[in-house]
């Protein structure tokens, strides 16, 4: 194994490595954007929003309909997709999670699984299971050459957009009133309620922000990986949840770090060990189990002690 690794490194030129690095960073940025949605919801409601991956999938379909079917310019569609997806996130919260606010955790979990399953089946029914092609946006999907290496423009755009979104998000969370309410609810749900924080509003806002970020991620995901199917969101969804756990669930910066670790790790494993490429999807789960075993609260998570 070690010999093979050295050989693979020796065979890899600097340019090739740079290409993998850029790919890894852009995939990591996408994971980070989606993982933030998981981590924010978990921080406040202590539940996995299983439907988050499927929200990404729906956003891809929204973009497909906007650009390919209705011929709306892509930048207007981009804004439209963000609004529509944020609305979808709020609707899911309202119908699937709010009625179960005081129910046992397992019921909420089942409801989340049900919501995810419903979105997948609905997409399959409405848009048919045939893969569709995400609209081509020449500005973003053109190749830029660096000597012998060609890299898609979107691979550079993704990290920039991710960083911008992150700055805006951190500003909202740290310096606005609703952000303060979010932090309060995530610290202590009951006390925040007693202190007069409107819990329902805060939770709705959380879902809206998370879904909007998912929409941004989905749009760029579609440009980079253009095949859209109803099951598109499942794997990224699971992996982004894992990224959020790796970083320490409930922690926004942790989610970003986790996303980058996962994205870079996946691309590099396939780059260095091509014979393992069939196991690419298993990497995330193995990493999850290792992390949970050695550091159950994730890299940046706070230590939790259970009270009786």
């Amino acid at each position, binding site marked *: 194994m070690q010999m093979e690794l050295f050989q693979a490194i020796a065979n890899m030129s600097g340019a090739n490595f740079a290409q993998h690095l850029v790919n890894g960073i852009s995939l990591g940025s996408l994971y980070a954007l989606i993982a933030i949605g998981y981590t924010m919801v*978990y921080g406040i409601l*202590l*539940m*996995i929003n299983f439907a988050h991956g499927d929200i990404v999938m729906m956003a891809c379909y929204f973009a497909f309909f906007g650009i390919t079917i209705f011929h709306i310019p892509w930048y207007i569609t981009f804004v439209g997709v963000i609004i529509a997806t944020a609305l979808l996130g709020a609707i899911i919260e309202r119908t*699937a999670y709010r*009625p*179960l606010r005081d*129910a046992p*955790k*397992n*019921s909420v*979990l*089942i*409801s989340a*699984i*049900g*919501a995810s*399953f*419903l979105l*997948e*089946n*609905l997409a*399959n*029914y409405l848009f*048919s*299971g045939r893969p569709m092609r995400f609209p081509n946006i020449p500005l973003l999907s053109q190749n830029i050459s660096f000597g012998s290496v060609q890299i898609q423009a979107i691979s550079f755009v993704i990290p920039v957009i991710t960083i911008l979104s992150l700055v805006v998000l951190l500003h909202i969370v740290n310096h606005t009133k609703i952000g303060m309410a979010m932090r309060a609810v995530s610290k202590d749900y009951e006390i925040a309620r007693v202190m007069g924080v409107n819990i329902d509003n805060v939770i709705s806002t959380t879902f809206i922000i998370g879904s909007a970020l998912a929409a941004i991620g989905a749009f760029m995901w579609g440009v980079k990986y253009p095949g859209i199917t109803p099951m598109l969101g499942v794997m990224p969804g*699971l992996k982004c*949840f*894992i990224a959020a*756990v790796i970083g320490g669930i409930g922690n926004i910066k942790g989610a970003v770090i986790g996303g980058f670790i996962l994205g870079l790790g996946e691309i590099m494993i396939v780059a260095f060990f091509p014979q393992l490429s*069939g*196991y690419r*999807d*298993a990497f*995330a*789960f*193995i990493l*999850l*189990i290792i992390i*949970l*075993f050695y550091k*159950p609260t994730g890299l940046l998570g706070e230590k939790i002690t*259970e009270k*009786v």
Partner: protein
Amino acid sequence: MKKKRDLILSVILLIVLFGLSWLLNSEMDSYVRRIANLCMIYAIIGLSMNVTNGFAGQFSLGQAGFMAIGAYVVGIFTVPVAARATVFYAVPMNPAIAGIQLPVWAALLGGGLLAALVAFLIGAPILRLKGDYLAIATLGFSEIIRIVITNASSITNGALGIKDIPTLNDARYIFLATAIAFVFIAALINSSYGRAFKAIREDEIAAEAMGINLYKHKCLAFMISAFFAGVGGGLYAMLLGTVDPKNFLFTLTYNFLLIIVLGGMGSITGSMFGAIIVTAGLEYLRIFDEPLELFGMNIPLFRPGLRMVIFSVLLMVCVLFWRHGIMGTKELTWDRIAQFCKNPLAVFKRKGAAK
């Protein structure tokens, strides 16, 4: 007295049901038999999922993975040796196992035992997790199992799947397997182990303080659950005649989730009802996938995919408005039936009072 009566009644019921399965086998066409058999197989797996999720309170979503193990053990070891070259046409079978052919019962048991062994090995790290984390880790394991199966071509024939598995669409044998699983799990639940499971479900810390070894009991529940899921998976493979990694996507687990939610988390008789309703329901919902003509007009609403939409809406409605399912954590016992026969209206009255 009462215990004796219950035992006699249960034995009579089992014999009657076995007779029914005999009748089903000789009188019905293969389509109806297949649905009935699928009901019983799903009942086994639903029961197995209820052991971890309903009784021990550990939310596991790994059932599809354990089924896959059982199904593949049956697939690999029961395909006749002579037929293997044609089944494994892309990558020849590993010579170490190419000559081994097991009788069906041994392959089923072996599949169950291998699933239990895998559950034991992965139980050590992941049973320390709780709630959502456990759910996602078990779901991840079921996907890893599927990925390994897809990639280990010389043993499992990879993505091509295994064909020519001797089929068993015989309600008598499948009924016997279901009956054994039911009796075993019922006995387990009523034993001290079962009470320990329930104690863990209600409150882990209190259970530990009462001297229950948490890890041992969780692991036991997980292994028993995996064993029956493996056996169920083996029967499933024999009912279909083929196995394919795509059969065991984690969405398969959602079927069993609906079964135990509908039947009642923590009720084995509930799981049986749930299995029958969900399997038969899914089969008869197929009319929604076919185009419908009403008064000479083609209603465009009915097209492939509607069935699964209805299925997932049912799951949602069930969780949102009918969280306890048919049985809740109660069981359908002979006592209750006797009470019901004496005064059928009392059931409804008590429900109203409980609210």
